[in-house]
């Protein structure tokens, strides 16, 4: 069984935020809600050394999504391939899912008065395409696929690099 996922390799992110704008364009999101965020943390001093890191905060498409349990109108569902979706027709904009999500992923769309979030570009995935944010990333810091295939890809790259060094 597949579980589709985006995996962020934080150490490769350059903080360019192209993923954010690709997402905005793909889903026609107005100013305000941001389904994908590449958040810069730092520079800050950690143990006497400067550090700078980037964190991609978006819907994690949890295996046990707390938002599903929280939704009073059953607008949120999880597909068999792992993608968690909010049904626009059913959503009443109550924000219960926002309260339930540990990541702050669901976003309120003031133009539609409903809650939306990353849907893993389900329309693209169903056509065999990568999500918009993944396609646009300059450093391949965002990888997409069945979670265990993605981890395998990361391992292969690590192994190759270890050999080079």
């Amino acid at each position: 069984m597949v579980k589709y996922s985006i995996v962020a390799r934080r150490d490769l992110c350059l903080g360019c935020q192209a993923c954010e704008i690709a997402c905005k364009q793909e889903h026609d999101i107005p100013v305000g809600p941001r389904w994908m965020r590449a958040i810069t943390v730092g520079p800050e001093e950690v143990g006497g050394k400067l550090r700078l890191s980037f964190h991609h905060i978006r819907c994690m498409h949890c295996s046990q999504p707390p938002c599903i349990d929280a939704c009073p109108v059953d607008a949120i569902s999880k597909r068999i391939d792992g993608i968690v979706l909010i049904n626009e027709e059913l959503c009443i904009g109550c924000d219960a899912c926002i309260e339930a999500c540990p990541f702050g992923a669901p976003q309120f769309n003031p133009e539609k008065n409903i809650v939306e979030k990353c849907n893993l570009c389900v329309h693209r995935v169903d056509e065999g395409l990568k999500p918009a944010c993944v396609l646009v990333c300059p450093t391949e810091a965002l990888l997409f696929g069945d979670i265990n295939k993605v981890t395998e890809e990361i391992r292969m790259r690590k192994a190759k690099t270890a050999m080079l060094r």
Partner: protein
Amino acid sequence: MPKEKVIRTACADCHVGCGVLVHVKDGRVVKIEGNPEHPQNRGMMCPKGLAAKQHIYHPDRLTYPMKRAGEREEGKWQRISWDEALDTIAAKFTEIREKYGPYAITCQHGGKPSKVMRADYALMHSMGSPNLGNSDAPYCYGPMPIAEGATYGGMISQEYGSDCANSNLAIVWGGTPASTHLPWARLLSLAVEDRGTKVIVVDPRFTVHAAKADLWLQPRPGTDAALALGMLNVIINEELYDKEFVDKWCVGFEELRQRVQEYPPGKVAETTWLAKDDIIKAARMYATIKPAALYQRASIEMQANSVQTLRAIAILRAVTGNIDIKGGNVSWCFPEGFLHQLAMLGKESKLYSEGRLSDEIEEKRLGAKEYPLLSGPSAHFASPVYPPALIKAILTDKPYHIEALWVSNNLLLCLPNSREVYQALKKVPFLVVREFFMTPTAEMADIVLPAAHWLEMDEIFSQTTNLITARQKAIEPVGECWDEMKVSFELLKRMGLKYFATPAQNAEEELDYIVKGMGMTFEDLKRKHVIVVPMEYKKYEKTGFETPSGKVELYSSIFKEHGYDPLPYHAEPPESPVSTPELVKEYPFILIAGRRRIAYMHSMGRGIPWLRELVPEPQIEIHPQPASELGIKDGDWVWIELSPPNAEGRVKNRAKLTPGIHPKVVQCDAHWWFPEKPGPDHGHWEVNVNALINGSGRGDPIAGTIVLTGLLCKIYKDGED
């Protein structure tokens, strides 16, 4: 239902020109995405290009020509037809040429890499006026071609000249490619991941690249020449240089050896605020890990000693033998017969020598006397007018009267000394501005012309090292926006003039002419979309270097001839803790004025909602320690005042406290304005640091660089004055 078309083109929201797939439906752009098959970017894009849909369909976009209907800056406009606009301009230019001569018609454009530059050259040069150029010439892509031209006879640090993809060591010196040249940053990232390339970053700021580097050097702004000469001292004295290359291909090594003795690492450490061991370590790494690519960027060009700093860096590459080799720094590879968009403007150009004006006219170019290697007949590269000389000429009628200014950028914000620029824009009798939006510069115009966007034009893009890409129109221009080249040809026709440099007499023929020598037409190129020219290395073995000696000139005969020091040296910035310790008491911070943000190029993009959401305000970076002494908290508005002799007055930026900057250094944004605020100024006087920088004549003696990196300033919290 109409089908969606996908058009292959290239972005032009910065210099890089990424390959783009544009989805078009019913003649409207519905989506822009990176082209996975374009070798430049392999599917990636940055926020600017991705947001282009919001640019072209922006409700505030200028979509028809207008003429002033009230006083200048009053904001009263009357819509006119293109015919009326062109007839008016053509009549005016004809009258000026007869009355004052062609030199009285002048032009400025930005570094914007669409065909605007070529179109402006076609128009101005065909009228016989040499007085045009990019307004950032003295501090971006101006000093570098002078230094590299004198050293190698051509450039090797142009876009993609630094071949990090094949290097084992890359130096990122004075720039943040992740904010300005994202595809290069991508190549670097992949090189680190896939081949273990080591990285040295030289930057006063802890950039994203510094965070990932093997070695980060944090020099005092304005001392990069000392660092480069200190590294040369180590490399030469420890005999780590490439002896074979130096013996065979360099002249002036003994003179250089003597010069670098003045820069022992201990002394350089004092000058630069670096650790001596780090200087030695960087030198040894660069000389011994091969091949090594050295990427240096505009911050070096913005220093008081820009050209000699770039010379020292150019020489570093030469003595380590990293010239025109795979994984080093490489020069352009374009086929004979291809008229490169930049080469056509310069001596770079066996390709296009007819693009230049006669020496007699070139000598009249404003700035040619003061900065002959930048402007005029001796200029190696594009020979732009020296912008401060143009502004002075408008204001003083010296050396001659200026009657018209044709502007294709946001000159008022993008040129330092904005107050003087403002006076010049007010004074010049006839001002035409071509723009996308009603900028503070456009607000001052007599006639405003609406510009076509890159999604709306055919063009050939080739600024990178070995790629030729067809930029093809995805949609017809919105409203009555026009392609720049079409405007130039229509004006020339109305004036009874021909484009003197080519037989092409319209925009379509001009594109055909660029690739004609390759035996093709623009239509052919469109079908191919992109041509990858196979890289050729060590081209000098066939042709020598295009310097007077045919070799790499460590000791520059060109500089000697012009009375400049033939060897590089470090010079203190005119105001610095060393040269003006008295000033430092009142102005304790060294300012880097002009941070680049990924969301914007220069003054563009502030009105694009998605981009503005990413970067909503101008920001000044301050170390937490001095900030706490000054009572400045993260997010406070902070006023900036520059030391004399810069202008009195102040601008403010929002404080960002970060340990990623030296406690004695601050960095602010540049080019800010707020399209949403009322005209004519749209708030730029309050925030744009260029209003304060008043450095004409105090900068680099060779390129006339106005100091933007390494000024002195004081800062204080808003509300405490």
